């Protein structure tokens, strides 16, 4: 069968010593990058791009791809250990992952994240092999109306990220939406909320917000509780997940993989939603949703699988259509072009060695990462036993250098401090940061897609309801909203009576 031959071709390409070496190298660097808060895969790939000029294109791509998903693996590590998401897709892992770490269960959390990611990576690779061109076409069916409705669904789901007051979660989402609007308006060129500061013309950097809100705020909060020592548990109960952990997680992993694979294909920002969507899904169908936010392993297993699946399938639009789905893909596209390769459906035909070699090496990379990361868990967990008073200045340092490395900007550091203070105050007021982050990411996209849909439909509102995919999403959002509000309404009624 054709696919079989292609796989063999892919294996022969991927398993040359040079390519294996570069795959490992990329994965290692990627993991390092992912673990370091603030330093992202885009910056690293850009830095290493010149090194790739002197190697054959397949090798270059294998290394760059390794960096990319290596950083996904590494990003979950910091989310779980120190509550700082390395990537936007790791934000959700902070919720239950960090909670598990505080209960001494960092080991199982890290292990499940790695295993779930590996499973998702394998499945996603198979999906790419079998369905790449079809999925590429599916991506084109999503127009601005569909994306807008998807964002609406995402926002409704965002309310589920908090396990406290719904009203405050909504307020945090709105605050996040406003923060996301800071910058230059794409349609009119107007600079909004920039107060004349040129660094803000391109908006507030995601890393700055997250470092402050998740990293610094959490440190201040932990120091505040130092007397009680409830956070500083040094007791670690086992490195590996227990049987009940695995039993609870495997379905979440599968669901997350499916969700991530589908959402990763959408060029307009689907991959970011995959981990959020998985979390919301798990919480919704769990028998006891109140466990979420304080250490439910499904809250780690699902989202981690989802974001790794999404990371892999996001290669599809780039390889089959030549459309990059995010900044990292754009760099890889540039790398391909510098080497004289033009992506598109032709790539599969003209350079099958490249296409299939890359795909097989994705799987190899995932394997290498699991082999690398599982033993590392022991080291990470041991790291957590270091007394907090030594650990937190190190975290502060990594945050500072991470933020500075974005734009070499002191203003960014000042903003991160501001977010840290505000984040701390909000934590004291029982307002959780995760919904804000989702609002921050979705806000500008929602506005852009709505306005674009309006322009394309020449002011016709019904376009959101007449397009089938869009209508489905909106209906799902409405249903989800009702399902979330219903218990509250019932509760209030009981109160009154």
């Amino acid at each position, binding site marked *: 069968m054709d696919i079989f031959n292609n796989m063999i071709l892919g294996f022969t390409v991927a398993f040359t010593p040079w390519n294996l070496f570069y795959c490992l190298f990329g994965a290692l660097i990627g993991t390092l990058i992912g673990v370091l808060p603030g*330093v992202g895969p885009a910056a690293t790939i850009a830095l290493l791009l010149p090194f790739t000029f002197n190697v054959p294109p397949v090798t270059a791509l294998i290394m760059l791809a390794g960096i990319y998903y290596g950083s996904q693996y590494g990003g979950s590590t910091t989310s779980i250990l120190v509550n700082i998401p390395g990537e936007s897709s790791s934000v959700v892992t902070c919720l239950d992952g960090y909670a598990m770490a505080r209960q001494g269960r960092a080991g199982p959390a890290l292990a499940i994240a790695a295993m779930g990611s590996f499973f998702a990576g394998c499945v996603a690779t198979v999906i790419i092999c079998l369905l790449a061109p079809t999925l590429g076409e599916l991506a084109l069916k999503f127009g601005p109306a569909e994306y807008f409705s998807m964002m609406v669904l995402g926002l409704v789901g965002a309310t589920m990220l908090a396990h406290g007051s719904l009203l405050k979660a909504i307020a945090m989402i709105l605050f996040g*939406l406003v923060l996301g609007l800071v910058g230059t308006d794409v349609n*009119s060129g107007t600079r909004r*909320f920039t107060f004349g500061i040129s660094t803000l013309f391109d908006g507030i950097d995601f890393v700055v917000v997250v470092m402050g809100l998740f990293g610094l705020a959490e440190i201040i909060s932990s120091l*505040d509780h130092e007397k009680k020592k409830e956070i500083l548990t040094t007791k670690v109960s086992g490195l590996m997940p227990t049987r009940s952990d695995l039993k609870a997680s495997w379905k979440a992993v599968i669901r997350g993989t499916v969700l991530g694979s589908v959402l990763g294909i959408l060029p307009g920002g689907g991959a970011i939603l995959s981990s959020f969507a998985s979390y919301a899904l798990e919480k919704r169908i769990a028998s006891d949703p109140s466990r979420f936010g304080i250490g439910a392993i499904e809250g780690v297993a699902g989202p981690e699988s989802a974001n790794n699946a999404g990371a892999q399938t996001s290669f599809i639009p780039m390889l089959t259509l030549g459309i990059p789905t995010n900044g990292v893909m754009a760099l890889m596209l540039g790398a391909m072009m510098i080497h004289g390769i033009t992506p598109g459906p032709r790539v599969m035909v003209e350079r099958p060695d490249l296409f299939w070699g890359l795909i097989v090496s994705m799987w190899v990379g995932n394997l290498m990462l699991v082999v690398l990361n599982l033993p590392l868990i022991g080291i990470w967990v041991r790291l957590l036993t270091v007394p907090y*008073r030594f650990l937190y*200045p190190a975290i*502060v340092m990594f945050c500072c250098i991470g933020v*500075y490395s974005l734009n070499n900007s002191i203003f960014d550091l000042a903003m991160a401090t501001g977010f840290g203070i505000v984040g*701390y105050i909000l934590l004291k007021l029982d307002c959780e940061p995760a919904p804000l982050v989702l609002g921050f990411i979705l806000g500008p996209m929602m506005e852009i897609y709505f306005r674009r849909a309006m322009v394309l439909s020449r002011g016709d509102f019904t376009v959101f309801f007449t397009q089938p995919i869009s209508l489905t999403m909106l209906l799902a959002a409405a249903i989800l909203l009702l399902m979330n509000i219903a218990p509250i309404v019932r509760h209030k009624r009981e109160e009154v009576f």
Partner: protein
Amino acid sequence: MRIRIRNGKDFYAGLFFFFIGIVTVLEARAYSIGTARSMGPGYFPILLGYLLLMIGGGTAIRGLWLKGEGIKISSIRPLLMVSGAVLSFAFLLKPCGLILALLALVFISCLGSREFRIRYAVILFFVLAAIATVLFVYVLGLPLPLFWSK
């Protein structure tokens, strides 16, 4: 008539969001609003601003009615020290170089802990400075000046 704040957390959270809402609306009035069919840059921000005003106000009022917990802050020291550490790093980095900036960062952030001891801070500084130099400057090649520039 004395108004008692029953739920400090709700009340102040509500005020905070109300305030954000006000700032948003005030800023957004300067941008053209347009219509729902053809939104200008100001439409979405003003919408969000008004929503924040409503929800913030509602939460604050709820804080007056329903009973809840007050805000507990043991000490303002961690807040001051962590912010101070980051800001001093920020302002010392370019003029004085990475090493001195890290010195300030490590010492000031260590002050945020109740268990501060100079000995620990010094050792920590050396360890972290070494890690930072090797990792960020040599391995990753970030443009961080180690010492003061001429």
